[in-house]
């Protein structure tokens, strides 16, 4: 056993997983609260990385200014996403089917506009920490990976405080748990929907920003991330925020370890298999209580 190589893959896996987690939280919130699958969610991730690149590298402003600006801009895109591709269709007879198409159309618009604006090339988000390298007992961690852990943990702690301590956060968690129950105690669903989309946009953007220095990013980065987001949301269970974070980390970790021990080519096939098995054995996900009855119907 080469423990150093294994440790290295654990670090890769957990840092990728951190970005998966941030990405999936928003997908899960939107799906859990509003009951629709936003097929444009991957594009929010993609926009995050590219807008941070635009502000931080093209305009030459500070890296952190780029992060904040990109998150805010994508939160606005998330709100627009809700207003034009989700809200007009809610409550119609085939809302789920219709929102698939509307969000798919929006994703085409965003992807192709981005191609026009930035070209088809992959861009690398330059960070001030690119040359940093920390060695711990033979393990080497590069600056961008450290930033994923630092910023990711800060974001998750803030998110947790927000959900457990603030009025809006509690309202949101309650709506994700049971939208009917939330309505009964007087929570305005319309405002929660808007807020969920804004938060989803900001978090997906952060995921994209954190991976952009490592994986590079282009107008087409959204689709593959959307698939990973589906895996995380399904395995964790809809609307479970902490569940999405835990499973996000776990998916990144198992993908990376599978790459090391078995095969790089079949790593994503492996996580799709896990998703299918969980979906068949425990359709409500690992982090939600209750039977499968209302989902199997």
């Amino acid at each position: 056993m080469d423990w150093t190589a294994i440790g290295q893959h654990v670090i890769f896996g957990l840092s990728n997983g951190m970005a998966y987690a941030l990405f999936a939280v928003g997908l899960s919130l939107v799906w859990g609260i509003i009951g629709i699958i936003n097929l444009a969610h991957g594009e929010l991730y993609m926009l995050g990385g590219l807008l941070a690149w635009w502000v931080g590298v093209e305009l030459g402003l500070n890296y952190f200014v780029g992060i904040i600006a990109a998150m805010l801009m994508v939160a606005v895109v998330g709100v627009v996403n809700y207003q034009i591709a989700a809200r007009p269709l809610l409550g119609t007879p085939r809302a789920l089917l219709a929102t698939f198409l509307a969000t798919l159309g929006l994703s085409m618009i965003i992807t192709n506009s981005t191609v026009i604006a930035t070209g088809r090339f992959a861009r690398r988000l330059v960070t001030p920490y690119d040359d940093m390298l920390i060695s711990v007992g033979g393990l080497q961690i590069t600056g961008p990976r450290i930033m994923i852990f630092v910023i990711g943990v800060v974001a998750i702690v803030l998110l947790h405080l927000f959900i457990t301590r603030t009025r809006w956060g509690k309202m949101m968690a309650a709506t994700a748990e049971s939208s009917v129950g939330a309505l009964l105690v007087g929570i305005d669903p319309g405002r929660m929907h808007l807020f969920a989309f804004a938060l989803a946009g900001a978090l997906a953007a952060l995921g994209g920003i954190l991976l952009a220095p490592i994986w590079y990013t282009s107008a087409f980065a959204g689709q593959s991330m959307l698939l990973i987001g589906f895996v995380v949301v399904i395995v964790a269970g809809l609307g479970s925020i902490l569940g999405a974070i835990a499973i996000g980390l776990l998916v990144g970790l198992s993908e990376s370890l599978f790459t090391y021990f078995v095969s790089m080519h079949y790593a994503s096939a492996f996580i799709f298999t896990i998703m299918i098995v969980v979906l068949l054995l425990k359709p409500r996900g690992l982090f939600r209580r209750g039977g499968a009855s209302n989902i199997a119907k």
Partner: protein
Amino acid sequence: MPFAIGSTYLTHLIVLTFIFSIFAIGYDIVIGGMGQFSFGHQAFWGIGAYVSAILVRNLGGPLWPSILAAVVGAAIVGLVIGLISLKLRGPYLAIVTLGFAMIIQIVIINWKPVTHGWMQLTNIPHLSVGNIVLNTPISCYYLILALLVLVIFLVSRMKASRFGRALVAFRENEDRAISVGIPVFKYLVIAFTISAAISALAGALYAHYIGMINPGTAGLSYLWTVLIIVLIGGPGTIGGMILGSFIYILVPEFLHVADIYRYVIFGAVVMISVIFNPEGIWPRLVLLWERLGVFVRGQLLKQAKE
């Protein structure tokens, strides 16, 4: 009619429209017929394309038996996926079928000795009938049109049958369908299998018509294509599938004047179409036609009275 169109390129687009119509009619058995979602039909289309292309190109098999083998192969895969996943409903069914399709695409990418991975399979033999090789769009036109008509005929017969009506009963109300004794799970699996087979037929025709395929042929972009066709046209209607294919293939062509903006505009067209017309365009046209009929008859009656 190809001789009336007088343009090879336009004929080519119309042949593509026919192929995508077959795909959409197959896919719509799940969407419109069962009222369920599958995000996995790009895999059946891809299996159809790859199995037939490999049998004819690499192994020198005869064309039509190879296409048949591809259809049967995809039907078996569809049967297995259906048996495993058709206990689930709604978005969960969509995601589990998506998982299977992604795994199939990953196998196609990595099984390089057979599929050539991303290096593409090129020089796939053309469609042919007997000894006549159909290597131009115009020569393929009637063949593919005939197959489309055959598929339309068979699917209409299926929809009108006892089995088809049982599916409608399921779509409208699952509990009631069970309570009147319809073996729901069995029927869903059969419908899903038929749907996979028709999608594979379209995929095989596509491979031989275009002449080259790559793993993207079994990828998400073809799922989005067929989803847009079905939903724009009008789920559950055969006319809608053909109309949707025409819109999908021809509108971006007409948007060529808009140059790089054409897919942005097409995305907007898709969105606006679903927001203002969530039932699809075909049912709306049928309604207009019926209203026109009522109007004309009313006018005729009025004239007759006067």
